[in-house]
């Protein structure tokens, strides 16, 4: 089993953090993992993405060219990466930010109004965790409990109070 996941969106949406939670959840599940961010002149409002590989074998190339799973939170990233998704793969689309529908018929497309849900729940910046929840419930790569541990390990010690809200957001996406 190897999942090659691409998280993509705007800087400031927590794209890299979302990938880090997935990587840590994979690690606590006993999988081999890698996490590779786009880096460079990115800034809040610019595009950001990260490549996460979860596998039961050692990870070779950490670069995801053809994701098995694309978690996408803005239109430029959707336009750029939709065509790269591997046949039979999944796209999780934040439908409150991306109005377009996917026209591909050889992949599974899941729409979830994550940003709207986060606002409604008073979880302002946590649409990323809602997206992750949906991705995990669709792919079942890792169990709910292990993602919880992944969140606990990813949140820095100075922000421990945010663990609970991250888990709540994840749960909302998971059950959507």
């Amino acid at each position, binding site marked *: 089993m190897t999942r090659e996941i691409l998280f993509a969106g705007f800087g400031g949406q927590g794209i890299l953090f979302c990938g880090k939670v997935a990587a840590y959840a994979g690690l606590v599940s006993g999988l081999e993992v890698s996490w590779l961010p786009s880096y460079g002149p990115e800034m809040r409002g610019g595009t950001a993405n990260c490549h996460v590989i979860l596998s039961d074998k050692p990870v070779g190339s*950490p670069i995801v060219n053809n994701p098995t799973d694309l978690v996408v939170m803005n239109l430029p990233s959707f336009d750029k990466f939709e065509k790269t998704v591997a046949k039979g793969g999944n796209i999780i689309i934040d439908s409150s930010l991306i109005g377009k529908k996917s026209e591909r018929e050889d992949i599974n497309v899941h729409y979830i109004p994550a940003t709207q849900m986060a606002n409604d729940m008073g979880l302002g910046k946590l649409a990323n965790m809602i997206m992750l929840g949906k991705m995990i419930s669709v792919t079942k790569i890792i169990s709910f409990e292990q993602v919880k541990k992944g969140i606990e390990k990813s949140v820095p010690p100075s922000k421990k109070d945010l663990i609970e809200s991250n888990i709540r957001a994840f749960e909302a996406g998971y059950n959507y």
Partner: protein
Amino acid sequence: MDKVLMKGNEAIAEAAIRANCRHFFGYPITPQTEISAYMAKRMPKIGGTFLQAESEIAAINMVYGAAGAGVRAMTSSSSPGISLKMEGLSYIAGADLPCVVVNIVRAGPGLGGIQPAQSDYFQAVKGGGHGDYRVIVVAPASIQEAVDSTINAFDLADKYRMPVMIIGDGMLGQMMEPITFPETAGKALAEKEWATTGTKMTRKPNIINSLYIQPEELEKIIMARQKKYEDIEKSEVKYEAEGLDDAEIVIVAYGTTARIVKAAMALAQKSGIKTGLIRPITLWPFPKDIIYKTAKKAKAIISVEMSTGQMVEDVRLAANGACPVYFYGRTGGAVPQPKAIFEEIRRYA
């Protein structure tokens, strides 16, 4: 011990601290800035020195001074900054001092770009600075290997009294992988009798110097160093080999490029082409014996690099005409794709 996820840059910094490095001098540059940032945070808490110098040149000369005083010292930078350090590196080599230099390579020449590259190979292994000198160059391909190599780099530097360079690229510096740190606490370091630590009126002064006006005197010193380099070429070569026994096409690649090559090799295997990989872990000393041995059996060797073809020159020298040696590379910060490497494999199979 529990595995932790860490960025390559931070892992290298933590590994250096665990190797008892307490003196770090740096200057920020993408994509290695996290090394400096990590050192800035940690060093004051453990009684170490973190100093952001006014320039890369100042930083390497601070390393020169600290190394002369016998402490484990380190600096890190990325390509343009490493170019600036070359004068200091030559002096450190000429004064037979141990230190560790990290180059998280970005695209060049000039300011180039900030994406991954391997176009500093020549600079790293062929001198870079002036004079007859060598630097041990280690090119890890994973974060765990970066940790282990960094710790080992300090031991090698002390053992041979010379600079050791860890060479990675932006991908290695920025990515996270699970790692464990080997147990290093309490490991005693050998006394450095040559260090300029103050005579306390009990011994003759030690002198750190690279200036020798008399040719005969300088030649003798250089030749003694040369002998040391020969010993290193005999005993410190490190490489990873895979599938060499029955490979038609053998790829030589180092660092993160070797990982992408492995994805290409999986594609070749599906098409029934037998491939092998030689991944130099030390770029100097270069694993020339295994390359020559392999060249005598293989149909062709391909050197795959993120450059316009630098290591390929050493691969050709090592193969010594025993089989054709081809090159494939991307440069300027572009990363080779497994499919493109596979096409090259198919072309020569």
